């Protein structure tokens, strides 16, 4: 493990200053009525990088990624992908642009089974003309794909036809993360993916993140309250407080004390 960490650190150094960022958010503002949830937030994500976002409850982390992925309409600001200015009007557009997101809670329809959730909004249809014209779904194929995915990700779900609300919280979270991995976005955003799940399943989810990054060259944004996860996995960390960014640090150049200080406001930058 220590040797692995070494090479990880080496890779981090190169990734942190790679060419054009795959994703860049510039001067994002978001107001909810009179409440300023985001004020002038900018960040960038390099190719193959894992960017951690940390901050206290209510700092604006979820709002930031919802705004970037089109789940909320931003008040002002710009999104750039691979050096091109893009409009992300809605979550469908974000997916088309190659951004997969696991939102904090409420990502799954609890009354539907795992295959339906995995393919939610992107159901496979029968390949014959009738299936195409009328949108007849191909349940068998979706089920086969689900079985393969779950096997690959080492997720055990005994009854695939059961509604996902019958699964444990960790299994549900795995299905949600598995969905993002399955669709192979260029960018995968995870909002507290290791919340509410057991230690083993946390490790499984985080290993999955690293594996997908290394094999597919995917860039990640990882929101977490867990400093261990951030320092083990991330290349860089963005610190938010009260809707603003108060820090953008390379993991190699910082310490937990500094990051925690920024989160609470004890450190002045």
């Amino acid at each position, binding site marked *: 493990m220590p040797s692995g960490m070494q090479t990880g650190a080496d890779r981090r150094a190169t990734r942190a200053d790679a060419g054009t960022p795959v994703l860049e958010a510039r001067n994002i503002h978001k107001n909810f009525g009179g409440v300023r949830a985001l004020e002038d937030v900018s960040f960038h994500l390099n190719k193959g990088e894992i960017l951690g976002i940390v901050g206290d409850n209510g700092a604006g982390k979820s709002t930031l990624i919802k705004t970037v992925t089109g789940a909320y309409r931003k008040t002002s600001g710009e999104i750039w992908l691979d050096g091109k200015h893009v409009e992300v009007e809605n979550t469908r557009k974000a997916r088309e642009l190659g951004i997969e997101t696991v939102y904090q809670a409420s990502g799954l329809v609890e009354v*539907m089974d795992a295959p339906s959730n995995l393919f939610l909004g992107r159901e496979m249809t029968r390949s014959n003309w009738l299936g195409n014209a009328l*949108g007849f779904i191909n349940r068998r194929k979706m089920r086969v794909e689900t079985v393969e995915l779950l096997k690959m990700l080492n997720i055990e779900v005994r009854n695939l036809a059961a509604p996902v609300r019958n699964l444990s919280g960790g299994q549900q979270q795995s299905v949600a993360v598995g969905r993002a991995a399955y669709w192979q976005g260029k960018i995968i955003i995870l909002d507290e993916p290791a919340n509410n799940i057991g230690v083993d399943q946390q490790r499984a989810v985080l290993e999955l993140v690293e594996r997908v990054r290394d094999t597919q060259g995917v860039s990640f944004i990882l929101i977490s309250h867990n400093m261990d996860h951030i320092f083990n996995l991330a290349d860089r960390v963005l610190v938010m407080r009260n809707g603003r960014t108060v820090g953008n640090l390379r993991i190699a150049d910082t310490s937990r004390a500094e990051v925690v200080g920024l989160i609470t406001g004890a450190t002045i930058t």
Partner: protein
Amino acid sequence: MSNASSGDFLTAVRTRLDAAPESALLLPTLFLLLLMILIFSFTADQFLSLSVLRNVLTQTSIYIILGVGLTIVLTSGEIDISIGSIIGLGAMILGISVVNLGFPIGIGLLATLLVGVLCGLMNGFLTAVVRVPSIIVTLGALTFFRGLAYLLGGGTVMIGFPPFLVWIGSGTFIGVPVPVWLALIAVIFGQLFLKSTRTGQHIIAVGGNAEAARLAGINIRFSKILAFVIMGALAAVASIIMVARLDAAQSVMGAGIELQVLAAVVLGGTSLFGGRGVILGSVLGALILSILQTGLLLSGVVQFWQLVAVGALLIAVVALRISYEPSEVQS
């Protein structure tokens, strides 16, 4: 049979039921239906005759058609209590266009369907776009459409429809009454649409967890509006059958039918909270209500007791289901 093998058998049955959650809802309802037929075949001697059976089926076909529509609306997480008034308005459109204005029956039928679709469109738009809760929208629509029906037809009874319409109401095709065929088509459509098409899956997702559906890129507005439009179109079909059966159109037609249909659908296992629609359950529910009423009638039970029996049965069935499946009550 040894203990072990009966245990194995039970586990096998359980696994089967878990694998198809819908059948777990359908089997008890089917059992109730069969039980009722059995009881009435003893208490009412003509009950098991072909003519009674055919009558029950024909009479139920309207409820089944409406039940399919309401199942889809409930699955999307909404409700429509205006369907009785859409029937009244549809009857007036059919009567005025065919009887008063002398248009060909084909035009009259199309106009009726179109009005049904427009009613659904209005309900859907106000619910999904203006975001007024559907219980309020359709409560308003209940009197709004009925008012329009009275404005159009007053208290008159329109009669003198062409033979084709009479055939829709009382004719048969391969020995089976036409309304039963129409109900069968509605059920096949509803089942295929809800369970096997992308749009149907989206309606289930929207009713199950609207926020998750939205984040997955599903168009919530479209899904809900479509559910109401299907309901409106099916209410128009029901209206056509009703006019055809009586060979007459009147503005009061369909009044109060929404409660019967709602009872049938809930009896069949469809959730009032969205996300779970059991089309075949609604068919069974409608049959149970009809058979209960016909059976009690033929057994010589007074009408008032029939009302009591229907209400009590509905509450008892739902109470039983909740006690077996606590998740029924959550959000």
